[in-house]
């Protein structure tokens, strides 16, 4: 099997998964009790008024017709329009994705930068004071929910010190870098604090595994020092498991950022999803759902590619 063949197969799986996911999302979303017509009419709703609105929005048509229409639209890159406002779903998603995107794009690399050195220290000095401190701190950090970390940061830096805005978002394009950055510091910091604690656990465990491997003992015996040997021969091995975790973290953060979004009142993807579910604006829910599926699949794909980049043994297997 060639490298190209391997990628082609992965891509086919990608498409197949997306198709299955579209069915699952559509069915689950339709199964939600209540619909957008009722939600919109609220306490003024009567069965007749609800029915009229359903007809107006085409919600009374058979499921299969509506699914077909949605799928066909997506093939043309059209995710449909919100029943309520008539705005295109992709138009609604874009600004939200930008915000969640920044949260993910900043917090994942930053927490990796924090976690790798700390994890290394925690592994190497695990029987000494510093290692124990790092290890203990990461345990405590793991137990802190991200919204709690966020709330504490807000109280300290916004309410007491008054250095930073408590919440809300400033767009990089319209408000400029400094305003944007001031609004991003606390949300990103709270994500980094919690995420890096989790990553430290994985990095530490990964390095400890390396320490017991034969190749490390060999490296030591040919004269590599403890630390240099670990970095030279261990980092790459540890990296495969780190990349796996990072992939999972990135995917879960796309939706999981909702917690941070709520605390800091950032209009991200998670809040769009929740609000649309509450309003039963199903086209938007479906659109966000599909976007997340694509994102998860793409992340997995990238993770697979990274395995190849990191591990020469995998590349050799494929060529053989």
């Amino acid at each position, binding site marked *: 099997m060639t490298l190209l063949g391997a990628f082609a197969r992965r891509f086919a799986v990608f498409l197949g998964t997306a198709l299955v996911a579209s069915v699952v999302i559509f069915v689950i979303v339709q199964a939600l009790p209540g619909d957008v017509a009722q939600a919109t009419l609220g306490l003024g709703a009567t069965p007749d008024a609800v029915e009229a609105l359903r007809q107006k929005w085409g919600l009374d048509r058979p499921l299969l017709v509506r699914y077909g229409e949605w799928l066909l639209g997506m093939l043309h890159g059209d995710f449909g329009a919100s029943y309520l406002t008539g705005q295109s779903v992709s138009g609604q998603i874009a600004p939200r994705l930008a915000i969640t995107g920044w949260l993910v794009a900043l917090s994942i690399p930053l927490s990796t930068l924090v976690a790798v050195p700390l994890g290394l220290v925690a592994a190497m000095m695990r029987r000494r004071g510093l290692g124990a401190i790092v290890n203990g701190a990461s345990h405590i950090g793991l137990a802190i929910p991200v919204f709690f970390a966020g709330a504490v940061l807000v109280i300290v830096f916004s309410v007491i010190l008054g250095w930073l805005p408590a919440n809300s978002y400033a767009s990089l394009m319209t408000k400029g870098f400094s305003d944007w950055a*001031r609004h991003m510091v606390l949300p990103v910091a709270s994500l980094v604090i919690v995420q890096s604690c989790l990553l430290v656990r994985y990095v530490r465990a990964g390095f400890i595994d390396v320490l017991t491997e034969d190749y490390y003992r060999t490296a030591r015996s040919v004269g590599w020092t403890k*630390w240099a040997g670990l970095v030279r021969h261990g980092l790459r091995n540890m990296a495969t498991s780190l990349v796996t975790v990072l992939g999972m973290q990135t995917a879960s953060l796309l939706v999981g950022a909702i917690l941070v979004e709520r605390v800091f009142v950032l209009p991200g993807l998670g809040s769009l999803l929740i609000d649309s579910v509450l309003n039963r604006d199903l086209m938007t829910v479906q659109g966000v759902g599909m976007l997340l599926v694509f994102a998860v699949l793409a992340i997995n794909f990238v993770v697979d590619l990274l395995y190849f980049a990191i591990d020469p043994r995998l590349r050799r297997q494929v060529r053989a």
Partner: protein
Amino acid sequence: MRLNRLTVAGVAAIAALSVLVGCTPSPPNETGTTTGTTNGAATTLTAGFTLEPATLDLTVSDAASIPQVLLYNVYETLIKQDASGAIKPLLATDYEVSTDGLKYTFHLDPKATFASGTPVNAEAVKSSIERMRTATNNTIVSSMAIISSVEAKDTRTVVITLSRPSNLWVYDMTSTAGVIIDPAATDLATAPMGSGPYMYDTWVQGDRVTLKKNPSYWGTPGRFEHVVFRYIPDPNAMVSAMLSGDIDLIGELTSPDSLNQFSDTAKYQIIEGSSNAEVVLGFNHSRETLSNLKVRQAINYAIDRQALVNTAWGGKGQLIGSMDVPTDAYYEDLSNTYPYDPDKARQLLADAGYASGLTLALRIPIAPYTTPAAQFIASELAQVGVTVTIEELDFTRWLTDVYLGGNYDMTIVSHVEARDITRWASPDYYWHYDNPAFQALLTKADQEPRDQFITDMKAAAKILADDAAADFLFMFPNLIVARVGITGIPENLVTLSFDVTTIAAKG
């Protein structure tokens, strides 16, 4: 590559520091100059609210969050109700009613123009009213249903003919149903157009709606260049935003417990007024148990409503006893109809044949006030032998299951619309309360001369109270926290509007 211990430790330390550095602000002296605050020139008013509208089209959606932003600020009505409930001119300088009470002649203010520059003439008013009569929002449609014709007599005179006289309709014209929309507005969902002192500017969904000053407003202009309605669903985030000065006021405080954080009167003012919202413990009258007057009365006697307000809403909120609020012209305090008396409740239940107890399903929509209220009610009713099972539903599921599906025994909802005592006259409404005497009285009251109207509306409210049609728990308070220097905030909510037209800021 060889690293010594020191280097690695150094890298680790730098990495750890980077977390801390990340928390350090760039310029530490920028306090208060963040987006939306109004220190200095006070050209922007930023107000925090809990619920964001899903659409801005009030002809489609019933959501209270739409008139909250748009009514009076962007859209105006022909006539307006002042804080005491009296009717005042707005787009119409005055109006006359024919002696049979059927013909209303409105004289439009010749100065009135839409923000677009188009005059608010009779044709525009007519087309707007027609738009409301054929709206999707059923609350509006039902208040406009008694209009039989609208005529543009000349450019400044509109004659509206009703199919029957109605005292309540005039009030409806002062509120959401009576807004006059610019005929040029095509996309009300994302681009509302009216004649108010502020114009719709932008809507960042999930975050804020921004209004801007209407530079050519025909009346007294607004005081701010921009008014921002920020949506902050999390109560803690709301409090933080207020404490850090990000917002000038909290337009609706949903965490009365947090009031003590604003006790510094040098910095904050707390405004507590009335609203149109009755928090109702609704009974499903089509259930055998609850169709029994004794059971309903027993529940009313069993719940200490003042204690409930203290527990569920920080002691804020007035006891009302029926479906009217103090700003209603015909309000009467009926909160003492069923004083707290658990012994009497037990006796009534025994008389009704439930001496051995009964079980009732309390299915509530998720809201800040429903959960604590439901828990309190469950514990009160347990004292008199009624087992309450609480179930929380998201609002749309509640609408489907409880409101339209009738699948409940008891529920708790805040009814925010003004004059919604009329809901009790339709047996199809989710309470399934069918009292012909009440219905007849309400219909009669609506068509009578004003004095008689007031008397009969009072009598109607008394019927609901005596009949224990529901347990009218309390009136939801209008709770506002504002920074000192903000003036002109209306204390009482007589409509759903958060009326910023009179608000100004010093400092």
